[in-house]
């Protein structure tokens, strides 16, 4: 993409030609939103799915949905995208049967562990599978608060995405942590 520098001083319009009403070229609001939020939406989806490729699929779906429904400069754009990323990812998680196999394959490709340690890789895959199953069991809002917070969103951003006050996020997060911990204990004791 070629970017032209905007001169400091306005140019004199050519004689007989009306000066343009807006000198600066406006960036497409959707592009701006996409470039700002895409990485974060993928990160949220990846946190749920533990699968970068599928997380990018989710992000594409979420942005396409948003584009169909809302203004790109809507004040709630970020919160909408974050929430939709969590819900769409959780829905996908629930529908997947082949996750374990794919996770192991992904692990082999991405994990910095030595390739001659298949036992450790299998152990990590099992841990992730257990966490994903536990996430599925949580109520959507409980899972969402965990995923959003541990994806790096601030309390204010988590609150906006879940439509709760910022002051409530800490309590919700604490309860969500306890709930996931409990589910993990149940999962590992079976």
């Amino acid at each position, binding site marked *: 993409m070629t970017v032209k520098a905007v001169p400091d001083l306005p140019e004199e319009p050519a004689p007989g030609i009306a000066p343009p009403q807006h000198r600066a070229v406006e960036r497409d609001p959707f592009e701006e939103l996409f470039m700002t939020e895409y990485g974060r939406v993928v990160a949220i989806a990846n946190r749920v799915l533990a699968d970068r490729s599928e997380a990018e699929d989710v992000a594409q779906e979420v942005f396409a949905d948003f584009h169909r*429904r809302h*203004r790109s400069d809507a004040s709630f754009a970020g919160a909408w995208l974050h929430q939709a990323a969590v819900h769409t990812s959780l829905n996908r998680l629930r529908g997947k049967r082949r996750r374990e196999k794919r996770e192991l394959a992904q692990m082999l490709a991405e994990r910095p562990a030595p390739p001659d340690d298949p036992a450790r890789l299998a152990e990590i895959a099992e841990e992730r599978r257990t966490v994903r199953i536990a996430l599925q069991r949580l109520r959507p809002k409980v899972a969402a608060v965990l995923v959003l917070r541990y994806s790096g969103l601030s*309390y204010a951003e988590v609150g906006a995405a879940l439509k709760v006050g910022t002051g409530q996020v800490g309590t919700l997060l604490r309860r969500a942590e306890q709930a996931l911990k409990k589910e993990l204990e149940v999962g590992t004791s079976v």
Partner: protein
Amino acid sequence: MYDEPLAVPETARGHYATCAACQGRFTGIAEDARQMTAALAVPTATVDAAAALRALRPRLRARPRFVLRLPSLSGRFLRRGALVTGLAAVLVVTAIVTPLAQTIRNVFAPTQVQTITLTQGSLAGFPDLSHWGTVTVTQQPELKQADSAAAAAGTTKLPVIKPGNLPSGLPGAQYATLSQGAGSFTFSKQKADAYAASQGARAPKLPGNLDGSRLDVTIGPAEAAIYGGDLSAAAQQGSKDETPSQGGRELVPQLAIGIAKAPHVTSTGATVKDIENAVASQPGVSPELKKAILSIGDPSTTLPIPVVQGMTVSDNPTLKDGTKAAFVGDNSGTLGGVIFIRGGNVYVVAGAYSEKTLLDVANSL
């Protein structure tokens, strides 16, 4: 204190330094957080946003905009004959999908709503009504903008849309009316037989009085208050082949409140049993769809709301005045609509809000 220590006031820090209970609690919270961090750890997803946007662009152009958008009711839409499809859909909902009561010969007048859940497959597999007969538009509805809620009500003779409770931050409303529309469906045994043959199925046995029997359907008038979105731009887009992303300009409302006179159906001959038999015997109607049809409680007074599996449905939320409503939301949990019937009119409150917020608006109408 653990998550955002800098936000903790000095007095609290002073207390913490000397309180064993608080220190113990902090340790527990910190340990939980460490466990969660480890449990939820995933490989970092590095992305190329520019490439991802390039990949997404074609989808943005190809996909239709949200179904609630107003251009679907624009003049161009009507002229292009899509109204036939719309009326066919109304017929499906009110006369075919609904196993109408034994009073079908006289009138179908729904007084309550009920969701029926279907899969995408069963919806996609539902035959076009034109395979079974002839759909005719006898009165084309006309979409117009109105200056105010009172003006819209004056045109449609419906109650004034005057919500007492709206979500904060909404822009002012724009109003629109849709005049009454009417159409008919005349059953043709010849067409049904030909369609069955084309599907490799044997022509179903049908009651003799069904052939040539006509269903007359009246829809509307209707009125709507649209909050957010650009009604004039929406209408304009309906008359041009623009892509939906024009500069990010928004055509979809944040909230829409609609009131329509409940659809009305009369029949010249077919009984409910005739129609049920006809539907059940047609190729393309899945067992699941038949089951859904039969699951409707009181078909003479029930307007079924077909819902695709996977969407969020809330069973029978009740308004403050005791009216039974239905809530239907998308699978992301961010968009939904409350539908109910009151005084012979169908009410819809839809938008990017939670069920509770939409119900609050509905309760204030």
